[in-house]
């Protein structure tokens, strides 16, 4: 670090981890938070950033994204994904292990960490596989992977079909104090499915995935967390039933946490009309009633955090028949604006809740040294302007992926500065 310091002047400091919400300046020195609050004078060693009208908060953390490296560098790399993350206001992301080869060992975890350091954008925390090769059989070496820097384990992309395997993982992971993330999908019910099972799928003649395919696994996982005392984290929840089951588990003190994606909070199965493959997700987009339940759950904390499930695909991969198109959309560069536009502006949640669900809770659940503006902590800071209006133009994404159903949408809210370890990694407009 040079001796220079950075002063964020004139914004509103918003840090739910310290119940901080006040107009004030923030001083960063030596890559850490040096002073917060009040009016801070700048000396000649200080760069001043005008933050008037913005919110200055702990850096956002996306605990669920697919960076495709190693294996599909044509689709996304750790570097492009990390830059896209920073552009979206994320100071850190967790990379899912369903790469080619699977991130199921110490060396693979180390590779991701090295690539991320080289990229110098958002921090990238690897997630290791639960089972070797994500084959759902033998446990991967959690201890070795955590030693190399993994922060959680998951077979995401594939559900853990075997209840025995998940139980074992929940037990074994306790030695390392990491969450076990499950992609909840009962495989025999979901087989061949392309969208939510309902009247739209029946009309379009597409095989449906019933809500129960998710909910059966949600309750199974909650019961196994109860049995083992382990921490199960449920990825991308999509149904009202799942919300009710999680609430049931939390009421009983079971260590279950959950996430939801911006798209499950903002779109319904109707987006699949016309066979729009950009609306093909797994879990599928559900009904308006499910969306309402998920929004309530974010507001009341039943769902702990918002994660993108950023899933880039090659530009023409979605240009095909709906049933054969791949699942998933990119999300890193639209997540913040979608939450501001669709949840905060209509009054469903306040900005403090947004920051809690996108920064504080992810850091707490994944034991990351971030999610706070406390003095002396690494200066991972997101400065965003909630009133900044912009139009989603996929061609301008930093991600290599262009697959989004939001192209052309006018949204409010944009990261103005993304600061990682005191370094400005992204500023709006370049």
């Amino acid at each position, binding site marked *: 670090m040079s001796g220079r310091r950075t002063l964020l002047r004139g914004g509103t400091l918003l840090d739910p981890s310290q119940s901080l919400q006040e107009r004030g300046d923030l001083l960063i020195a030596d890559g850490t938070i040096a002073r917060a609050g009040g009016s801070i004078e700048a000396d000649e060693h200080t760069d001043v950033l005008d933050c008037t009208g913005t919110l200055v908060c702990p850096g956002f953390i996306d605990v669920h994204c697919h960076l495709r490296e190693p294996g599909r560098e044509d689709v996304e790399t750790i570097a492009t994904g990390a830059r896209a993350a920073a552009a979206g206001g994320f100071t850190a992301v967790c990379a899912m292990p369903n790469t080619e080869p699977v991130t199921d060992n110490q060396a693979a975890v180390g590779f991701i960490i090295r690539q991320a350091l080289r990229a110098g954008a958002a921090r990238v925390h690897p997630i290791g596989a639960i089972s070797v090769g994500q084959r759902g059989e033998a446990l991967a070496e959690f201890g070795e992977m955590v030693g190399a820097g993994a922060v959680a384990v998951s077979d995401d992309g594939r559900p853990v079909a075997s209840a025995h395997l998940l139980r074992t993982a929940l037990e074994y992971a306790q030695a390392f104090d990491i969450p076990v993330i499950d992609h909840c999908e009962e495989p025999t019910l979901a087989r061949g499915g392309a969208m939510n099972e309902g*009247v739209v799928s029946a009309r379009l003649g597409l095989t449906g995935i019933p809500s129960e395919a998710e909910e059966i696994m949600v309750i199974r996982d909650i019961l196994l967390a109860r049995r083992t005392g382990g921490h199960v984290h449920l990825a991308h929840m999509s149904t009202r039933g799942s919300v009710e089951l999680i609430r049931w588990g939390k009421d009983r003190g079971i260590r279950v946490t959950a996430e939801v994606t911006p798209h499950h909070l903002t779109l319904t199965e109707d987006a699949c009309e016309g066979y729009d493959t950009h609306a093909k997700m797994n879990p599928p987009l559900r009904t308006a009633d499910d969306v309402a339940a998920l929004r309530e759950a974010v507001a009341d904390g039943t769902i702990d955090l918002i994660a993108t499930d950023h899933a880039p695909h090659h530009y023409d991969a979605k240009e095909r*028949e*709906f049933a054969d198109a791949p699942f998933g959309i990119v999300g890193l560069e639209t997540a913040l604006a979608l939450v501001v536009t669709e949840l905060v502006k209509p009054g469903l949640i306040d900005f403090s809740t947004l920051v809690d669900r996108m920064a504080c809770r992810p850091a707490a659940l994944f034991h990351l040294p971030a999610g706070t503006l406390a003095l002396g902590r690494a200066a991972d800071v997101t400065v965003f302007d909630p009133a900044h209006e912009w139009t989603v133009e996929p061609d301008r994404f930093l991600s290599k992926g262009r697959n989004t159903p939001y192209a052309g949408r006018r949204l409010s809210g944009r990261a103005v500065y993304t600061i990682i370890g005191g370094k400005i990694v992204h500023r709006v407009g370049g």
Partner: protein
Amino acid sequence: MTSALGKDLLGLEPLTPDQIRLILDTAEPFKEISERAIKKVPALRGQTIVNLFFEASTRTRISFEFAEKRLSADTVNVASTGSSVQKGETLVDTARNLEAMRIDMVVIRHGASGAARFLADRIESNVINAGDGTHEHPTQGLLDLLTLRDHFGDLTGRRVCIVGDVLHSRVARSNIWGLKKMGAEVAVCGPRSLLPWAIGEFGVTVFSRVEAAIEWAEALNILRLQLERMTAGYIPSLREYNRVFGITRERLDRAPRDILILHPGPMNRGVEIDSDVADGPHSVILHQVTNGVAIRMAVLYLLAGGRPELAEAAKGGSER
């Protein structure tokens, strides 16, 4: 190019009742052409039509081909075997190639729901859906409507039950939309495992027992039971299916009225329908096949329309 039907015929769900009536009315004079000694009129002379069949289908392809030839169109058949489709060419590549060859219309049969729409969105040629996955098979729906109309006249209030594997049937969907738009009362009957979960939201009556359906219906449209449904675990056996849901002479004899019998073919005799029903006095199955050509001629003819602004200019003359 827009016609009274729009650019394409992708399904019956998006059509208005008037558009469906127009197709059925247009099919009437085409029936007569097939009875002539020279079964050919020059209406589509010079038009190039590609029959793009990604799934094997003898009768639908032949029916379209007759319809095209009787309208004097130039036709090319592309079947999935032996084409570049088998070499991994994507549907979007196929679409671009067709476009580059300046063809006028494409008739597409494809195993994926939405494939016809996919093609239609990407090429300027008219696209006719000849069956896409489990979505729709609009010309089959229309020929079923024409056959029913030949026998009942107005379909308002007529009770038609679709029997069998509605879940996987594009014929069922096209029939449901078409019949409802024509004012008929529609029911479905089959094992619950072969009906869509959301069938209740289609606005149809659901019979779980075939005897009840027979007591209610004036016409039965009996769907083909795909034999692979058994191995996929939807039903226990073909034998049991015939015992519980098969349309047999004994069951029909107990009906309070004569019931018109339709089947889109090809039939599994002794499974969903018994031979003496298929060949019986109230079967209109061959009539459906005859009507199929007339309906397809009508659809081809209507979609071949030119540009409306030229139509206005051409109206200056007095000849009507």
